[in-house]
C-alpha cells in the first residue's frame, strides 16, 4: 500500500506508522500524555493484519524488558512512555545499549521532576542524549516537531537502530503527542520474515541450528580487558554515528544576525517568533536540531563564526544550551531562555526575549 493522508494526533501517528513500518511488537504501559499510542494500536488490532504483537505490560520496567527480549530475537520492537515512565526504562535501555540491540523508544515528555505535571516539557534532554542509564553509552535521539515527523521518525528510528544495532529514541513532548495535523503516512513495508532476520541479524536468537555457534546476548563481561574492548567498540560505533547521522533544519540562517536554536514543538513556536522578528526587520534564523544525539555541533560552530548572537530556547532550565556552548567553544556568548514545569512560551514572549537580549 502506498502513502495515505490522515488527520492524526502525534501519538496516533506513531501507532499508525509502527504498523505500516512492519514493526513486530509494541510493549507499553499507560501514562499521560502518550496513552493514545497503545490505545490506537489496540483499536487497530494489527495482530489480525500484519501479525504485530501489542501487549500492555505490568509496568514500564516490564515493557522495556519485553522490548529487550523481542529485540534479542531480531524483531523490530518498540515501547513508548512519558518522562516518569522513561526513567523506569533507563535500566533496560542501558542493557539494550550494552548488548547492542536495536529498539525504538518513544518519550512524549512531560514536566518533572518526580510525578511533575502532564503538561509539555523538554526536561529529559540530558537523560536522552547523555545516555540516561548507567554506563558509557549513547542512544540515537530524534526530535520531531510535527505530527508528520512523529510518523516519519518511526521509520527512521527503526532503520537507524538496526543499521547500528543501537537503541533509538523519539524524544517528543506533550504538544506534539496531543496535537492533530495532516500527516502523509509512509508506504507500507512488510514485516521481515524469519529468513530475512537470519541473514540481516545473524546475532538474533532464533534457536541454534546444528553447526552454528550459540548466539549469546549479554552485556556482562567480568574481564576488564575484554570489557574495555567492548566499550571501545561501542565508542567507535558512536563516532561513526556522529559522522554519518547528524540531521538538522536551518531556516533563514544564512543571512541571520541572530540564531535561535530550538527543537521539537518549541522550534515551531520559535519559528512563528522568527517570522514576526523578520517582519520587524530583525534578521533571525532558526537552527532546529533533528538529531539531538548526534548533535549538529559542526554546523552550529560554523554559524557561530558569522552571527552576532546565538540563543537556545528550551522547555527546561537550560540543557541543550550546554551542547551548544561546547560546540561553539567560547567563540560567541550563547544565551538561554527557558520555561519550566509545563509552561509553554508564546511567540510574542520569545520575540520579546530576542529584542531584550539583542536589540537594546
Amino acid at each position: 500500500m502506498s502513502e495515505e493522508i490522515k488527520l492524526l494526533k502525534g501519538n496516533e501517528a506513531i501507532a499508525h506508522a509502527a504498523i505500516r513500518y512492519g514493526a513486530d511488537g509494541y510493549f507499553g504501559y499507560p501514562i499521560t500524555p502518550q496513552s493514545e499510542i497503545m490505545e490506537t494500536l489496540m483499536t487497530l488490532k494489527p495482530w489480525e493484519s500484519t501479525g504485530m504483537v501489542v501487549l500492555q505490560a505490568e509496568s514500564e520496567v516490564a515493557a522495556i524488558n519485553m522490548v529487550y527480549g523481542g529485540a534479542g530475537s531480531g524483531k523490530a520492537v518498540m515501547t513508548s512512555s512519558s518522562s516518569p515512565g522513561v526513567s523506569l526504562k533507563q535500566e533496560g535501555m542501558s542493557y539494550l545499549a550494552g548488548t547492542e540491540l536495536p529498539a525504538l523508544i518513544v518519550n512524549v515528555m512531560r514536566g518533572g521532576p518526580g510525578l511533575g505535571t502532564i503538561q509539555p516539557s523538554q526536561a529529559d534532554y540530558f537523560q536522552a542524549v547523555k545516555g540516561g542509564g548507567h554506563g558509557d553509552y549513547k542512544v540515537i535521539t530524534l526530535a520531531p516537531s510535527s505530527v508528520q515527523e512523529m510518523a516519519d521518525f518511526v521509520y527512521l528510528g527503526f532503520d537507524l537502530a538496526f543499521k547500528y544495532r543501537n537503541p533509538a529514541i523519539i524524544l517528543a513532548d506533550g504538544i506534539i503527542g496531543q496535537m492533530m495535523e495532516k500527516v502523509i503516512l509512509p508506504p507500507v513495508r512488510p514485516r521481515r520474515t524469519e529468513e530475512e532476520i537470519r541473514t540481516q541479524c545473524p546475532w538474533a536468537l532464533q534457536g541454534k541450528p546444528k553447526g552454528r555457534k550459540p548466539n549469546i546476548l549479554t552485556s556482562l563481561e567480568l574481564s576488564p580487558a575484554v570489557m574495555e574492548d567492548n566499550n571501545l567498540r561501542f565508542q567507535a560505533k558512536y563516532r561513526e554515528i556522529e559522522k554519518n547521522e547528524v540531521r538538522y533544519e536551518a531556516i533563514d540562517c544564512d543571512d541571520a544576525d541572530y540564531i535561535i536554536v530550538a527543537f521539537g514543538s518549541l522550534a515551531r513556536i520559535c519559528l512563528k517568533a522568527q517570522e514576526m522578528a523578520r517582519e520587524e526587520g530583525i534578521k533571525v534564523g532558526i537552527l532546529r536540531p533533528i538529531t539531538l544525539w548526534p548533535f549538529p555541533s559542526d554546523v552550529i560552530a560554523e554559524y557561530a563564526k558569522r552571527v552576532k548572537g546565538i540563543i537556545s530556547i528550551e522547555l527546561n532550565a537550560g540543557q541543550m544550551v550546554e551542547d551548544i556552548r561546547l560546540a561553539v567553544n567560547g567563540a560567541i556568548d550563547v544565551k538561554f531562555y527557558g520555561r519550566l514545569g509545563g509552561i509553554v512560551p508564546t511567540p510574542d514572549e520569545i520575540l520579546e526575549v530576542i529584542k531584550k537580549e539583542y536589540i537594546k
Partner: protein
Amino acid sequence: MDIKDIIKPENIVYEKPRLMNDNPMHYCPGCSHGVVHKIVAELVDEMGLEEKTIGIAPVGCAVFAYNYLDIDWIEAAHGRAPAVATAIKRLNPDKFVFTYQGDGDLAAIGTAETIHACNRGENIVIIFINNGIYGMTGGQMAPTTLLGMKTSTCPYGRTPELNGFPLKISNILAQLDGTCYITRQSVHNAAAIRKTKAAIKKAIENSMAKKGTSLVEVVSTCNAGWKKTPDEANKWMVENMFEKYPLGDIKNTVDE
C-alpha cells in the same frame, strides 16, 4: 583386555549431554545448578528442541548459564527474565522459551514480572532454583531464607519482625489462572533428579502445547552460602528446607 577394547559405543553407560560444552563451571562443588543444567541440556536434546530453544539467564549465580549450555541465550536484567521471555515467546510462538532464575531474581526483585507473566499464562517454562540465599553476591538473605537461618544480612538469623517470612512464591503462583503446572522438586539424590527431569519435561511439553505457564521449583543447596560441606548441605536441606518447602506437585491442570 586393553582399555581401547572397553571404550566402544556399545559399552557406554553414561555420557555428558551433547549440548553441555567443556567450559569449566564457576559453580561451587556441590552446588545444585550443575545438575539442573544437565537436566535441561538432556531434555532439549532428547526432545529435539535444540533448534527451537531460547534460554533467558537471570542475574544471580546462573547468570553464566549461557557459558555451559550450547543453545541460544539472552541474559536478562535482575528479575526481568519473565518479561524478556514473554516477548520472545509471543514474537516466536513456535520456539521453546524458558527462564532459569534464582530465588532473589524470581521472588524478590522480579516478583511483579513473575506474577504477571504467570497471570497472562505465557507459554514459557520457568525453572526456579530456590536455595534460600543470594549465592552470587556472597550469601545475603533471600525472600525464601528460612526463619532463624543466618546470612550475611541477617547474621543473627532471620526474624519475622525484621525480615518478614519465607515466601512460598510457587504456592502464590499456583493461585493464578494462567499457570497450568507448578511443582516443587529437588536434585539431592538420583530419585529426586529423575523426578525433576520428568517435571521439567512435562513443563516443556505444556509450553509447546500452549497450555499456559509451567514452573518447576527446585529446592536446592548453596553449600558455600550455607557454610556447609556438600553432604551437610544436602542433609540440612532435607531436614529444614523441605519442611517449609515440601516437594511435590502444587498444581497440575493438564493431567486432571
